[in-house]
């Protein structure tokens, strides 16, 4: 039987992993003193996806991203970024917007962007040219020669974001990119992220605002208490919870409650309840036969927000129980 040398096996494995999984991590653990911030996080981000790392404050999102980028090393576990186990080796193909924004206040906006590009291997002159174009496209052309200290917080944040994209990275890591932006700039950022995805980049971003994740993420991980509690698509997260129905009978008879599921609660003249596992058809038939009629009926799927709250609440209850 013909076998490849061990090293060659690994090389091929890493190459194939890089092809379809630009970010892969298994069992990442990181402690700061006695506090275990990340307790075995595993991630696998498909190529060309917008991948959201969701979690409450202090869940370990930032620490996970910093480990993936090689800013800090994990105490345990493995990571593979763009086919390299050492993120430093591929830093020129990665763009990063940290949670705590950092720019030199005395630098001009275009210089700051060109500087960030230069750090990622982009020529200064080309960086300046691209910076001018990017600032113009973002509606900040007038601020290109203004110093960072004279820009508003939101504008400076956009400048930094443009700086992290200027070298056209294959992987873009954004830590809480929407925080501190007004709704107009949040929409601009969403458009930028989608455009980068369309260019072929893979985007990994963290947030605790579910609206953005629900709108733009292809896949998500929900981290709570230092562990991944859910991994999948937004729809998969939402289907974890049963659908909810709101029913308004034609009659005002209280007896209708007896036909509805046990969790039904009356809100004015409407009833709200969880749709039974088999579906709502049989229940609707029963209600009509009993003469209650249907003045209104809406069935809605729970949002990502509800799924998130449920998962995180369960983790918090688990932790409280463990402490008790």
């Amino acid at each position: 039987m013909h076998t490849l040398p061990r090293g060659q096996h690994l090389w091929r494995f890493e190459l194939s992993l890089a092809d379809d999984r630009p970010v892969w991590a298994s069992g990442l653990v990181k402690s700061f003193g006695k506090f275990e911030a990340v307790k075995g996080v595993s991630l696998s981000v498909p190529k060309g996806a917008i991948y959201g790392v969701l979690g409450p404050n202090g869940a370990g999102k930032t620490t996970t991203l910093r480990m993936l980028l090689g800013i800090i090393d994990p105490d345990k576990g493995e990571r593979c970024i763009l086919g390299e186990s050492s993120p430093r080796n591929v830093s020129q193909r990665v763009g990063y917007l940290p949670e705590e924004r950092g720019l030199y206040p005395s630098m001009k906006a275009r210089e700051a962007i060109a500087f960030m590009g230069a750090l990622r291997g982009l020529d200064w002159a080309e960086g300046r040219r691209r910076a001018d174009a990017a600032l113009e496209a973002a509606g900040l052309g007038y601020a290109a020669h203004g110093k960072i200290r004279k820009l508003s917080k939101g504008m400076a944040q956009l400048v930094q974001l443009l700086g992290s994209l200027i070298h056209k990275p294959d992987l873009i890591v954004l830590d809480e990119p929407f925080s501190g932006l007004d709704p107009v700039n949040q929409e601009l950022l969403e458009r930028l992220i989608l455009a980068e995805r369309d260019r072929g980049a893979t985007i990994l971003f963290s947030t605790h605002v579910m609206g953005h994740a629900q709108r733009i993420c292809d896949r998500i991980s929900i981290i709570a208490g230092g562990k991944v509690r859910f991994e999948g698509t937004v729809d998969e997260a939402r289907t974890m919870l049963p659908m909810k129905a709101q029913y308004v009978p034609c009659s005002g008879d209280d007896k209708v409650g007896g036909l509805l599921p046990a969790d039904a609660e009356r809100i004015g003249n409407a009833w709200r309840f969880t749709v039974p596992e088999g579906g709502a058809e049989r229940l609707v038939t029963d209600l009509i036969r009993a003469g209650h009629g249907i003045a209104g009926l809406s069935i809605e799927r729970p949002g990502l927000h509800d799924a998130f709250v449920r998962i995180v609440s369960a983790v918090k209850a688990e932790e409280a129980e463990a402490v008790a």
Partner: protein
Amino acid sequence: MKHLLSNALIIARRDFMAVVATPTFLLFLLAPFLMLGVSVASGIGGAYLAKGQHDSREMVVIASAADAKRLKVEEDVLRSRLYGREGGPPSVRFVLPGPDPEAQQAHLLSDKAMEATAVMGGSLQRPVIAHLPGEADDGRYLALLAEESMRSAELGRPSGTQFSTPHIKVVQKTVPTRSRQQSTGSGTVVIMFMLTIMLASQAVGTLAEEKSNKVIEILAASVPLEAVFFGKLMGLFGIALVFVAFWGGLAALGIGILPASAGLGSFAPVIGTPIFIALAGCYFAMAFMLLGAIFLGVGAQASTMREIQMLSLPITLFQLIMFGVSMAAAGNPGSSVARFAEVFPFSSPFAMAARGATNAALWPHILALAWQALWVGITIALGAHFFRYGVLKSGVGPFKALGLTLTRR
């Protein structure tokens, strides 16, 4: 290595431009003018003070009118022969003898109205001289005056007669002496130390900016920390070079217009002036990098300006110790202290520069520069390691890195 260097250059460029292209840099560049102004002002003030003190002091001779006349002529000649037109001991005042010469002598020395340093009484054959503590030279001068006066009288010649007319000229020594070479070495150590302490010590707070504005996160994600540290040092070194070039140029202009007799002939390195200057430049670069790396590494651990200020003191003291050891090496070439100072990495640049003034061998300098460059790398790597561990909370601790573990039973 290539990537590390190119990354370091990007950071160096940013730092260099951020400092040099500001009005504050002009202030920094011209700051020595302020120092020079203070030195000149205090020098002039000190000179006036010393002159005032000197003018009010005097020596007193108790003598009859005839003796005083002879002594005055003799003193004029003696003073001009010994000291020329200026300088010498305080002027001499002549007073007539009182009824009690001993009491008069004591009274003159303790009189508040005058500042007598020495008083001569008695006869010229047997003069009695009293002087204040520490003014023995004045006493001896009065004794010599009496002796010369008596000699003239014994020989029957008029007071102040000159038998020999010397022609005195100044000759510069062309062959460097050992002491001149040592002086060259010591002077070089002093200049290097002054420049290093003034310029490299700025590295202590240089990472504070990145820590306060959170740029460090961007840098740490983009390039190796070693490149950040090295780049910061190179940026500062670039600033130092501008400073040295400016002041070096001014100094060269100053030397160009100074007369040959200004004492610059004492600059006599045995290895040859051009090679010595080139070596001193290389050693200054190494001293800057080595001490700058310590300042940078230690300062990077600090989180507030107060901590930075507190950390600066021990490093400055360390630097002063290196200066002391290097000065001892410059003063005792070939001694065991010199050997130690030449080998110990942080005193090596200073001591080796001093060695260039007294020893012609070139190969030890090549070895020393390589050795110092290695230590620049080690110091930067250690600084980056401690920063990663202490500030970014990543990696292993210093003890574990050295293979030392503490086990608890």
